[in-house]
């Protein structure tokens, strides 16, 4: 039995309404406990008085595993050369900046105080690979969202006007079969449309073959996810990614949810107007206003930060278009298994480029104009806007207005003139940062034992020395505990542990397999039974990760 005591820290735990209170925290066998029982002996005590204590950070949208990330790694040896991770007594060697190896990614996340990360774009057929990669990402917990919406099985169900219950059964079956925590839709129906040579698909435009619109897919899937009681709302990468004027599509997509919960991902890339000489402007005010008004809507930002990165998306329709802007000039685009696709395009965001500079400003505008930190999440859509290692810098931009304005003064002046960023006075507090990086992601994913520090919670705990320079503070925590084990000290990994895999297992009628099995035999490349990932197999893919199922409260 191990008992740890963290003494005298300034605890910031928004899930429990605790804002900077001095408290002792006790950890017994990996869990937080209220107090010690008679006979408990403290095996390690850490005096953290004066220091800031939060739960481990959670990245709810980061591309850390799956086919497209691995394509990016193979594509970009030039990315990796400057960023090696040396082998030590306890850690393995790895490398990479914007497309790091899984080993480098796990160590770096932990060293920044992150203890859980979620891969948002798992192609069902490729779920094994995603779990294998996440299983080889050390220390952190992982999980993912399965991509639906361009899969021919669902589109055929919609054409056949199958009832919502059957669709719910299929969605639940996908969650079970792929061992995932949520459902994502990427350019709804658009990936399928691209295979029929359509090059754009608006919310109310029909897929050339199926006649199904993105709106119908959004309606059907938001409803399915809601009725199944999956905690995380449908995770939506909307139509018209990156296109000037897409703010209208994005607002209409929110409406298409008809009041049901919907999560709009990397919304910065979907918040563009067409004003100004260059027909490219910020739609942030309209987006923020809509989020503020619609309590059913949440969003993560997908902030752009300047420098070299690589964009990796399931949205092959958009990525094929974006390949024209690749830097360096190369790209990989794939159609995948009657389910989805992917596109990998390296990209360099330049602060003197008008569009890139305005993208940077738009992301920050959204952060600062959305009132409720429980519904806006801190992401760069790693690596699409920037690698996750830029998070401390992003936190500084949000918490320090003078720093932000100094940066604003250095970007493309036309972009600066098009942005209201200079007028935005808001500075995020540490409490709000803790909400958006801990409490809120745990809540929106249904991770009841993560993202907070009340008794019963998993002891994923981070201790920082407060520093007015928030970038310095957040890039190097003093201590990081994962499930009660000290894994990082002074920003360096001191112990490597294996994280858990988070999944949901909603109730459903297994009778749906009578429809799915023949479909696989007739049209797919594998048999249904070889598609499904069992619990035992998941643990093998994950290299021995523990499976943590989260409750679903069925709503129909």
């Amino acid at each position, binding site marked *: 039995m191990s008992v740890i005591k963290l003494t005298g820290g300034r605890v910031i735990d928004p899930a429990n309404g605790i804002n900077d209170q001095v408290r002792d925290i006790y950890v017994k066998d990996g869990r937080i406990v209220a107090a010690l029982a008679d006979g408990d002996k403290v095996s390690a005590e850490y005096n953290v008085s004066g220091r800031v204590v939060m739960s481990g950070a959670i990245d709810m949208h980061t591309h850390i595993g799956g086919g497209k990330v*691995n*394509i990016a*790694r*193979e*594509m*970009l*040896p030039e990315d*990796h050369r400057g960023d*090696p*991770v*040396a*082998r030590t007594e306890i850690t*393995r*060697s*790895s*490398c990479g900046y914007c*497309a*790091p*190896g*899984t*080993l*480098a990614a796990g160590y770096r996340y932990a060293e920044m105080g992150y203890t859980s990360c979620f891969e948002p774009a798992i192609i069902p*057929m*490729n779920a*094994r*690979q995603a779990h*294998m*990669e996440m299983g*080889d990402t050390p220390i952190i917990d992982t999980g993912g969202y399965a991509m639906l919406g361009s899969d*021919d099985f669902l589109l055929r169900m919609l054409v056949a006007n199958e009832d919502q219950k059957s669709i719910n059964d299929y969605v639940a079956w996908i969650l079970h079969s792929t061992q995932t925590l949520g459902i994502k839709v990427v350019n709804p129906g658009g990936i399928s449309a*691209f*295979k*029929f*040579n359509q090059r754009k698909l608006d919310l109310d435009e029909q897929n050339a*073959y199926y006649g199904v619109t993105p709106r119908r897919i959004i309606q059907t899937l938001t409803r399915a996810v809601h009725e199944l009681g999956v905690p995380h709302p449908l995770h939506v990468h909307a139509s018209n990614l990156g296109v000037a004027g897409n703010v209208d599509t994005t607002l209409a997509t929110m409406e298409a949810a008809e009041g049901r919960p919907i999560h709009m991902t990397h919304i910065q890339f979907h918040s563009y107007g067409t004003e100004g000489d260059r027909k490219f402007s910020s739609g942030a005010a309209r987006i923020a206003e809509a989020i503020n008004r619609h309590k059913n809507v949440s969003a993560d930002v997908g902030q752009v930060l300047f420098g070299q990165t690589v964009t990796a998306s399931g949205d092959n329709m958009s990525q*094929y278009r974006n*390949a024209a802007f*690749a830097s360096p*000039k*190369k*790209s*990989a*685009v*794939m*159609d*995948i*298994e*009657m*389910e989805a696709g992917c596109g*990998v395009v390296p990209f360099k965001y330049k602060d003197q480029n008008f569009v890139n500079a305005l993208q940077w400003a738009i992301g920050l505008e959204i952060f600062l104009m959305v009132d409720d930190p429980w519904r806006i999440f801190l992401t760069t859509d790693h690596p699409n806007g920037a690698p996750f290692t830029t998070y401390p810098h992003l936190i500084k931009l949000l918490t320090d207005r003078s720093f932000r304005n100094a940066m604003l003064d250095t970007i493309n002046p036309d972009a600066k003139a098009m942005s209201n960023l200079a007028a935005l006075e808001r500075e995020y507090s540490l409490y709000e940062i803790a909400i958006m990086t801990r409490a809120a992601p745990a809540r929106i994913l249904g991770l009841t034992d993560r993202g907070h520090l009340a008794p019963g919670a998993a002891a994923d705990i981070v201790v920082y020395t407060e520093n007015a320079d928030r970038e310095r503070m957040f890039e190097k925590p003093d201590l990081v505990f994962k499930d009660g084990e000290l894994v990082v000290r002074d920003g360096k990994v001191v112990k490597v542990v294996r994280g858990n895999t988070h999944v949901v297992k909603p109730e459903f009628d297994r009778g749906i397999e009578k429809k799915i099995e023949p479909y696989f035999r*007739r*049209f797919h*490349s*594998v*048999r249904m039974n*070889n598609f499904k*990932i069992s619990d035992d*197999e998941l643990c*093998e893919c994950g*290299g021995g990760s523990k499976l943590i199922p989260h409750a679903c409260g069925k709503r129909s």
Partner: protein
Amino acid sequence: MTNEASSTVVTEVACPFCGLACDDLSVDTAGEALAVVGGGCAKAQAGFARLGVSHDGASARVGGQPASLEVACAEVARRVKASAQPVFAGMALDVSGMREVMELADAAGGVVDHLYSEIGWRSTRVVQDVGYVTTTLAEVKNRADLIVLVGTDVVSKASRFFERYVWNDEAMFEPAPAARRIVYLGGGLNTAAGQSPDGRAPEVFDFDRARMPEALSTLNALLAKQPVSEAAPLGIELARWQALADALRAAKYSVLVWIAGDFEPSQVDLNINAIMSAVRTLNVSTRSNGLGLGGADGELNASMVHAWQTGYPMRTSFASGIPLYDPVHNGTARLVEQGETDTVVWISALNDKTPPPPEAKVVIAPPTLKLEHEPEVFIPVSTPGVHHVGHFFRGDKGAALPLRALRATRLPSAAKVAAAITAQLKEVSA
């Protein structure tokens, strides 16, 4: 499937004997050796029969003498430890085997090199140079209307390609599979499988395949609407080339298939680049995709795991403590020739036919592997998908299949052996 539950036949078995990873095999486990009784092909039958035995009596050897697994692993650890840069070659493994070898190679400061890396690194160079536009097998099965086989018949390496993905009973979209148009670029290929079920012969552009770069540049010129002055490029009249270019432009979902190992090694990246150029031109107005098939002997298990763990493709040296990628420098043959390695460890659990190079002092392989020389250490291992569960990446990168355990054996898996060596290595170091 109804009464098979009680029989000795296991159904829906995935096959690890080529890159197609067909998963519709029925395997009878009753006999001494495994017997493929449904699905499969000659290679699968032979593979399951040869490897699907319990390997009773096989034992590790050190210096030609029987030794315990522990002693053998300790001896490998000692050799690897003493070497400045051991090379782990062969690598016909499942995912977990590769995972463990990666840990070993890192700890030992070595290099990992698959038996097909000499071709593989050239393929990878295409994605590093220009990238690609590709598709996967289920898409081909349902959408392809024109399939061009570039310098390959596919079936010589992956015999069930047409059976499973081209001449299907039905497809989700037009055209009906039997109406698909098949074109072979290059002579000397086995084109029998390209004949449609209703007897339509495939088109064959019969020329010396070593001249593939010329063929592809002719096609690219025509696709780009540039003039071609020759009346009969490669001895084939221009009108036929033009008709092919027109057919590709008119097709709704053409697929250009290649197998890198079927190209002249020096032309691999040149040819794939040229295919990608054609595909990119076509995608301006219609849909067209490449389909690179490979993946035999766990090639993709090795390349995928290597890339995701370290960031780099294979042929990366861990000797300095950080990964250094240099695919030209870090090939096994070159390292041996230049005296840059003194220890080649051959590890192969899926392939018991390819002989290890004579320099391999350590061989970790199925006991059915015929050895020309007795290595200094031999460790027999079981085979994934035959003796133990595992995972196998299909050659199109479209899926990773689960492999089954069908036959009991006392032999350890390659993963277990690699882990044991790593553990010994760390003890030697401590």
